[in-house]
C-alpha cells in the first residue's frame, strides 16, 4: 500500500489543463494547411498531382485542400517549388459538412458548429457515445482511446464511451466502412435511441482514407448513416478529436478555449 501511495505521489497530478490552457504540440505536428495562392505559378498543378488521395483541387483561386481526404502527409509541401502550401500547427480541424472540410485560399476555415438547440438541450451536458470501428487500422482507435486516460480525462466534459448502443446518444465511427462492417454499423445505428448523432473520426471514416479506391470499402460513414461531425486526420491528434467534440457540444470559443 505504501508503494502505491509513494508512486501516486511521484507520478503527480497529470491531467492536462486543457481547455483553459493549450497542451504543447510537437514541432513537426501537421495541422491545418495554409495556402498562399499568390505564390502559385500560373498553370502549376504539382501539389494536386502528387497528392496520393486526390485531396487537392485547383481552380482560378488556386489550390483547395479537402481535409476529408487529406492524410496530412508532407507530399504536397515537399513537392511545391514555391512553398505555397504548408502545414500550420493549428489542431482545430473538425467541420460540420463535406463542403466545409475544404480549405480555400484566402478564406477562413469554417470549423464545426455546435449542434442544434434541441439536441444541445438533450445531449450537451452528457454525451454518451458508442464507438464502431469499421475497417480502420486501429490508429484512430488508439487516439480516441487516449481521451479516456487521466491525461485528457474525457469524463470531466460529460463525454463517455459506453458499452451498448442502447446506452448511447450517438456513434463515433472510425474506418472507411468495409463491406463486411456495413450491416453491423447499420444495426448499431438502429439500436441507438433517438435523438442521435454520428461523428466520423479520421480520413477513412470521412471519405475512405488510403483505401478510397478499394471496392472492399464504401468510402466512409456517411455512405451508411447520416453524419453530424467530421474530424479529419490520419489519425487525428487526440487534441483535434477533443476540440471537435467540445465544439460540437458548444463548449469552445473560436480560439479553441472554453467559452
Amino acid at each position, binding site marked *: 500500500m505504501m508503494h502505491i501511495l509513494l508512486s501516486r505521489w511521484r507520478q503527480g497530478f497529470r491531467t492536462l489543463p486543457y481547455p483553459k490552457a493549450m497542451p504543447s504540440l510537437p514541432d513537426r505536428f*501537421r495541422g491545418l494547411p495554409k495556402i498562399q495562392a499568390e505564390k502559385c505559378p500560373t498553370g502549376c498543378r504539382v501539389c494536386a498531382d502528387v497528392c496520393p488521395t486526390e485531396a487537392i483541387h485547383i481552380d482560378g483561386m488556386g489550390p483547395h485542400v479537402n481535409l476529408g481526404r487529406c492524410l496530412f502527409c508532407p507530399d504536397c509541401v515537399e513537392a511545391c517549388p514555391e512553398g505555397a502550401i504548408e502545414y500550420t500547427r493549428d489542431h482545430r480541424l473538425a467541420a460540420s459538412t463535406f463542403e466545409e472540410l475544404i480549405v480555400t485560399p484566402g478564406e477562413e476555415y469554417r470549423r464545426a458548429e455546435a449542434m442544434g438547440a434541441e439536441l444541445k438541450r438533450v445531449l450537451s451536458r452528457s454525451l454518451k457515445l458508442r464507438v464502431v470501428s469499421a475497417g480502420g487500422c486501429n490508429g484512430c482507435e488508439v487516439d480516441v482511446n487516449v481521451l479516456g486516460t487521466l491525461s485528457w480525462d474525457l469524463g470531466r466534459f460529460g463525454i463517455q464511451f459506453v458499452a451498448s448502443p442502447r446506452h448511447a446518444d450517438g456513434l463515433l465511427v472510425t474506418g472507411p466502412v468495409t463491406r463486411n462492417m456495413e450491416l453491423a454499423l447499420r444495426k448499431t445505428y438502429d439500436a441507438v435511441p433517438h435523438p442521435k448523432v454520428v461523428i466520423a473520426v479520421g480520413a477513412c471514416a470521412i471519405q475512405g482514407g488510403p483505401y478510397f479506391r*478499394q471496392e472492399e470499402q464504401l468510402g466512409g460513414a456517411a455512405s451508411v448513416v447520416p453524419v453530424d461531425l467530421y474530424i479529419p486526420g490520419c489519425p487525428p491528434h487526440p487534441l483535434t478529436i477533443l476540440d471537435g467534440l467540445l465544439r460540437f457540444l458548444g463548449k469552445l470559443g473560436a480560439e479553441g478555449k472554453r467559452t
Partner: protein
Amino acid sequence: MSDPAMRVIQNGQALALRDVPELSSAAFRDAILAGTRGGARLVCLCAAPDLRLFAVLADDAEKRLRVAWTRLEAPRYPALTPDCPQAHLFEREIAEQFGIIPEGHPWFKPVRFHQPWSALPSPWGRDAASPPGVTDFFKVSGEEVHEVAVGPVHAGVIEPGHFRFQCHGETVFHLETALGFQHRGIERALVGGPHPLSLKQAETACGDSSIAHAWAYCRLLEGLAGVSVPARTERVRGVALELERAANHVGDLGALSGDAGFLPTASFCGRIRGDWLNLSAEGCGSRLGRDWLKPGGLRQDLGPVMATRLLPRLNQAWADTRDAVELLWGAASVMIRFEVAGRLDATQVRELGMVGVPARACGVALDVRKDHPFGPYREHPVPISVAESGNVHSRAWVRWLELATSHRYLAQALAALAESDPDPRPEPLPPLAADSLCVSMTEGWRGEVLHLALTDGAGRFARYKIVDPSFHNWYGLALALRGEQVSDFPLCNKSFNLSYCGHDL
C-alpha cells in the same frame, strides 16, 4: 537440415524469379514437410495468379530463409495442414483469395469473407451477398452446454471481430474467432505498385505497428532496387521501431493491470504510453510514426539537436514507466490472476508457428532482430527476452523485459545520433528489379512482420503478400483459453493483444 530443393536467401535479399526453384507439386510438398519437421518455420505460404504457390521457410538458427514455388495443374492439391499445422490459415487464405482448394483441410473455412480474386468460384459457394462471419463453428452439445457469441462490434474502443465460446458453465471448452470485418483489400491495392499510396497502405496495414510495416515495405523496395541505406539512417529507423514497441508494451501492461482490477498501474500507464507516443511525434509529427520512413531512407530525419533534446524526455518516460510497472509485480491480487490464466506451451507454439511475445513467453526465443537481423540490429544486437511459463504472467513479463531493452537501445542510439550529422536526403529509388522476388521481415512489437513481393516484367508488383504476426497467433489465443473461465477472456485476450486489421488486411 539443408534442403537442396529450396533456394537459400537472406532477409531483404531480392532474387530473380528464374533463380527461385520451381518444384513439382509433390516435391514442393515434401520440401515444406521435411523443412518444418527439421525445425524450420513456415513463415509464408501464398498463391499468385496462374495457380502458382510460393513457400518461404525460416531456418532461424542459421539466420536464413529458403524459398521455392510450384505450379498446380488444377485448382486443388492435397492439404499440408494435417501434416503441418502451421499451414492451416495460409491454406484457408489461398482458397479464399484464389479459389484453390486444399483437399483434406481439417477445418476449411473462409478467413476474411471476401470473393476470390481469380475467376474461380468461392470454395464455399459464397457470393457478394453472403454475409460476413456466417460459417460453421465448432459446436459442443450436451447438458448445460451453452454458447456465448460476442461481436463484431465490441463494448470498448476496439476493432471488430466475432468470438464464439463453447462453454460448460463458466468453463470454456473452445473459443473460435471469425475475423475479416476489417478487410479493406490492402494486398490487392498494392498490385501494380508501388503507387503513391503504397507506403501509406503499408503503414496502415496495422496502424499501431506503422513503423514495423513501413520498414518491411521500405526494405522490400530497397532490396528490389539494389539500394543500401546508410548506417545512421538505419539507426533512426531503429529508434522509431523501439519507440513504437515501448509505447505499445506500456499500454499493454497498463491494460493488463486494468483487467486484473489493479487501477494504479492501469491509470499511470495510460498516461505514460502517451509520453512514449509523443516522442515519436517529435520525430515525425505523428504519434503513430506516420511519414517517418520512406524507401531509401527517411522522410524526416532525427538530427543531433533533436536527439539531444529527446534524451532527457526518454529517460523521464522510462523512470515513470518503471515506477508504474514495478507496482504490478508486487501486487499479490494481480500476480494470482496473471499466473493461473491463459497457459500455452512451447510445443503448441512450434506446431502453430506462433511468433512474437506469446512465443517468447513459452521459452521459444524467436525474434527477427536476432534470427534474421536487419538494419541497425546487425551491428547493434539486442538481447532477446524470454519467459518460460507461457501464461499471462509470462507474456506480461516478456513485455517488461523488452521495455528495458528498448530503453537501453534508445538511450544508446540517441546518444550516438546526437554526435553525428544527418545523412543527405535519399535519392528517389531506381526502378525495381523485374521478374524478381523479395522477402522482407522486421520484428514489430507484436512479433514477426513479413512482406513478400513478386515483380512483373516492368518491375511492378505482380503479387504483394503481408503476414502480420497476429495472423500466426490468433489460434494460439483460442488454445490458451481452453479450460479457462469466460470471465478470464479479457485478461487472456489482452495478454496477446492481437491485431484485427493486421489479420484482415
